[in-house]
């Protein structure tokens, strides 16, 4: 059981690796609910937008009547963690996306879809987390047909980078990663998101 004081977190469950995010949150004793319909957003303090196919999710966000409610909730201060496709959906501008692909414009980033290439170019590597102490172990980043940050605004805080390009970033209540912290049994990125959320909620 999680403490009653803990604000509920939703995981967008339209398509993609949402179950893995729930597993990471569960390891932190944080309960989460799957979000598929507008009513599922009621009372949420945080939302995770997982990896998957951003074109599929973009279509389903509209058909499930979730796009506008999520945009409104973000405007009202909903904290969001977006990984890979989630990062694409939260960005200000998407390059190489579909013309009908909608993005929420919640973080001042320009990202190139599949900017790191196709699956044969997908990779894993060690990342230094900016928030950590010097002796903190690296985070194993798994990048799957990952989006690449091409430009970022002054308000964006870079939390980790790979070869000089931001791969983990935050602006106000929006945190995004071009890799998949849900795929490694290392809940530090999720812990930081939950910590941030609780600090703001208290």
């Amino acid at each position, binding site marked *: 059981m999680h403490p009653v004081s803990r604000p509920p977190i939703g995981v967008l*469950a*339209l*398509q*993609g*690796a*949402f*179950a*893995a995010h729930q*597993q990471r949150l569960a390891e932190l004793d944080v309960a989460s609910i799957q979000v*598929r*319909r507008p009513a599922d957003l009621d009372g949420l303090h945080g939302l995770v937008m997982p*990896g*998957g*196919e951003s*074109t*599929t999710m973009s*279509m*389903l966000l509209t*058909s*499930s009547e979730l796009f506008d409610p999520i945009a409104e909730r973000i405007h009202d201060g909903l904290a969001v963690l977006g990984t*890979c*496709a989630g990062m694409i959906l939260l960005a200000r501008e998407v390059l*190489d*996306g*579909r013309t009908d692909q909608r993005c929420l414009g919640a973080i001042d980033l320009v990202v190139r*879809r*599949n900017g790191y290439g*196709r*699956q*044969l*170019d*997908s*990779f*894993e*590597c060690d990342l230094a987390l900016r928030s950590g102490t010097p002796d903190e172990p690296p985070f*194993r*980043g*798994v*990048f*799957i*047909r990952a989006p690449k940050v091409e430009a970022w605004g002054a308000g964006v805080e870079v939390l980790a980078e*790979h*070869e000089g390009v931001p791969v983990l970033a935050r602006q106000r209540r929006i945190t995004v990663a071009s890799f*998949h912290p849900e*795929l*490694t*049994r290392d809940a530090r990125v999720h812990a930081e998101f939950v910590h941030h959320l609780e600090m703001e909620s208290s």
Partner: protein
Amino acid sequence: MTSMSEQAPSATSPRDSGSSGATGTFPVKRGLAEMLKGGVIMDVVNAEQARIAEDAGACAVMALERVPADIRRDGGVARMSDPEMIEGIVGAVSIPVMAKARIGHFVEAQIIEALGVDFIDESEVLTPADETHHIDKYAFSVPFVCGATNLGEALRRISEGAAMIRSKGEAGTGNIVEAVRHLRSILGDIRKLTQADAAEQFEWAKQLQAPLPLVQEVAATGALPVPLFCAGGIATPADAALAMQLGAEAVFVGSGIFKSNDPSPRARAIVEATTHFRDAQILAKVSRGLGAPMTGIGMDQVNERYAERGW
């Protein structure tokens, strides 16, 4: 829940490109399978169909020369598709592209990998090239999906390096009955295996003809170490939701879309049904007015059981 990356078998052939990271590792291969969960992978035979599939919300497309229903009708040897046709599809869409190689035909797989395809299906729908051996999938950087009719077959494919398993069903029939049989067999045996004690797990490994460490892992986690999708016979949104409620993590739709009267709305409806698979109100809504599904055939009329291919 699938187990996490560090428990996976380590790949024998990752390409380490120095500071930019390691490619082709097992976590990277399985990572793409994880991203396809909750989605619909659609068979397409040309760029136009690929675009229709992408527009409808497919999370990936499977490029092949003939859908299984046509392979079944035409007979003859079914092989890997023409590279030109595969490239045409790769160039037409932005979502992942899969392509099929014959069972055991590792050279077809080498060619498909060289084309930059994102996933290879070592598929019983094509005519097998080797009646004893499957492809050594660790020898590749591209991930593989393989079919299975039961838990032993699934674990043998995983031991060969498959990053995803799909229940075989009976491709090209538009009949869900075999897919249900295979899903129930795989998931039912997983549920039973979780109750087995250590001594019984040895017997399970013997009966399943599967490596003991994989049997022990499934007993401990209650899931395959890679994602389990469903294929073979899905023709309607209800079929897709049935597979999902039975425990599949995503669905492949082959002939069911482009052999129906009106592919585009049906494709979209199957995508929505796969997402909202427990919501009968939404399933009822998306199932309306789709026109005729593919006619389909009963199992007693099936000339050849593709699911029996593979060892």
